[in-house]
């Protein structure tokens, strides 16, 4: 990695502690990623992004701030990036996916908080992630109780604007979400000092749609057998899409897809044709959480699709681009975002429909549901998911885990047994 110590120090980060993270990441990435065989060349860009994870992109964000721009940190796929970019801001995903940050979060949060929230709060309070320090404002949402209260703690450090997510999807809830997007637009205009016009919002809607289309194209290649890219690599690309520049990201993903489509034409893949094909569903896997994918793909199966926030929920459904006025555009945004299915809604049968559809589209042999520990919403919904999948005769397994490595072998045993069951 190039030398970014001055930048980190200017951000007020804890350099000594941060060094520990910088030392650990290359080893972990090497063991999990670089050990894979026959990786697509198009992954080089994404490898580079990870190798400079706390350098290159943060430097770009700081450059943007020097030119008078604002940076907004987000934590959820319901927060409309289009609005932020239309007001001249940059949106960057902030979810913490490493055990490294958990201890910092535990200093202020109850033990039975999910590791994603602990890591996110810890990354900010400990000053060990530049993205958390750079963001001028965080955009929170009310997707769960843990997050709602965490915003109040983070608010003591950094301005946090919270969007009120409806809990149901009736007509009036979609209207309420439209109103929430309008309020967000107003707040962001105030904060950046820029006015959002229908022309610029139309442009940004197209820009984010293009990123979605690129990711959809990537996932589409994974429907082939043999699969041309590992689940681990596809997950990494998706994770990076949350914080990289959206235009560059779409370009790089499309470039990778050119290569993958050529592989498909030649019948090449990264796993044997008969390797069991796994769908992962459940709670998000924020970078650098590659735990489950690594276990599955080193136990003889391939992950071919993720029904996760870091998966299909992020890119499925496009925003209608035909809106001419801000009101029409905001309505189109509200409608698109409310199509995403999260366990924070009741009922949430759309998610089960999605899983059943993806099982068919991706020729899935078995579904593994993985919830972060203490996510009551997803672990409760798992009961219903299991019920429906059983009815449809789709093998299913439910796991609950956190970011630590202490249960690695227990999870491996279960995953191995599940794969043995599919191989028969």
């Amino acid at each position, binding site marked *: 990695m190039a030398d970014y110590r001055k930048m980190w120090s200017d951000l007020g980060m804890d350099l000594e502690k941060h060094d520990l993270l910088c030392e650990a990441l290359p080893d972990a990435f090497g063991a999990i990623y670089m050990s894979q065989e026959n990786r697509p060349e198009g992954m080089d860009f994404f490898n580079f992004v990870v190798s400079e994870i706390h350098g290159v992109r943060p430097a770009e964000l700081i450059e943007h701030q020097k030119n008078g721009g604002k940076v907004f940190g987000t934590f959820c796929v319901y927060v409309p990036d289009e609005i932020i970019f239309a007001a001249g801001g940059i949106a960057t995903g902030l979810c913490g996916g490493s055990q490294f940050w958990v201890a910092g979060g535990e200093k202020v949060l109850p033990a039975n908080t999910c590791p994603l929230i602990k890591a996110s709060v810890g990354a900010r309070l400990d000053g060990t992630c530049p993205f958390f320090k750079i963001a001028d404002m965080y955009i929170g949402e009310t997707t769960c109780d843990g997050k709602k209260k965490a915003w109040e703690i983070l608010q003591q450090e950094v301005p946090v604007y919270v969007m009120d997510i409806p809990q149901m999807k009736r007509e009036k809830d979609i209207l309420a979400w439209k109103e929430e997007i309008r309020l967000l637009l107003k707040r962001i205009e105030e904060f950046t000092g820029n006015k959002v016009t229908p022309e610029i919002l139309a442009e940004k809607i197209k820009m984010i749609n293009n990123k979605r289309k690129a990711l959809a194209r990537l996932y589409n290649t994974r429907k082939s057998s043999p699969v041309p890219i590992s689940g681990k690599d596809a997950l990494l690309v998706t994770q990076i899409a949350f914080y990289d520049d959206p235009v560059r990201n779409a370009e790089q993903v499309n470039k990778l897809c050119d290569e993958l489509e050529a592989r498909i034409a030649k019948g090449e893949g990264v796993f044997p044709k008969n390797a069991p094909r796994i769908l992962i569903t459940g709670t998000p896997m924020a970078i650098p959480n590659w735990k489950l994918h690594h276990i599955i793909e080193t136990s003889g199966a391939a992950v071919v699709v993720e029904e996760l926030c870091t998966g299909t929920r992020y890119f499925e459904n496009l925003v209608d681009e035909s809106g001419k006025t801000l009101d029409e555009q905001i309505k189109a945004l509200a409608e698109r975002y409310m199509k995403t299915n999260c366990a924070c809604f009741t009922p949430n049968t759309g998610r089960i429909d999605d899983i059943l559809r993806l099982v068919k589209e991706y020729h899935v042999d078995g579904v593994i549901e993985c919830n972060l520990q203490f996510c009551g919403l997803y672990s409760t919904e798992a009961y219903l998911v299991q019920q429906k999948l059983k009815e449809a005769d789709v093998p299913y397994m439910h796991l609950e885990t956190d970011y630590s490595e*202490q249960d690695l072998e*227990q999870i491996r045993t*279960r995953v191995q*047994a599940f794969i*043995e*069951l599919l191989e028969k």
Partner: protein
Amino acid sequence: MVKIYFTGIDIGSSSAKAIVLDETNKIVHKFILPTGWSSLETANSIKEKLAQVDMEYANGKFVATGYGRVSVPYAVKTVSEITCHGMGAAYLFNARDCTVIDIGGQDTKIISLSQGKIVDFIMNDKCSAGTGRFLEIMANALGVSLSEMFDLAATGSGVSISSMCTVFAESEVISLIASGQPKQNIAYGVVESVINKVISLCGKHASSNTSFYLTGGLCESNYIIESLSKKLGFPVVSSPLGRYAGAVGAALIAKSLK
């Protein structure tokens, strides 16, 4: 003609089991030893022991299972203990459609078989509540052996252990001892808590099977078998060979390998 033997080795968290099958699927040799500190040393001493009995055993084909399965250098294949326990139980109990309850050292598994094949399974979460280890720690806190604790439990009543976590449950047991609660009642509470945990796993598992078999280290405890039967509403069957189920399954897989 030289006979070929097939050995399954199940290195569990507390004990290691070995089963030798001949070409007719007959168990010709079996033994059990503590796993100890090093799975690798245990694996090597298993091979030495086999060689002492019959050189042909040591020259046979090996499949390893259990949490120490990766530490058996001479195994041609490793298979998860879930698959092995299911297959082993089907063999031992001559069952085709059944549910296997395995209370192991560090985990408890519920495995469903349909037409002799494993169709589904569930395991406890990563904590040790509802496992053999939990019972060992509690017996230790009570100053009795495992079988003594089961004997005590059979005459006790009225106490329930509410803590799910082993560490907290141990403190709870110590508080109960301090409060003068008779040992048999505490033993009863301890065993009940494990049985309840196992029953709730069975409930989550929701299979239509009505035949239940118990494998693992508690296979000879009549008290456990009776309590499980009562709570499940169906008879639970076990056998002294139940603790070898994983090793039997591994040996059967060794035989099926080409």
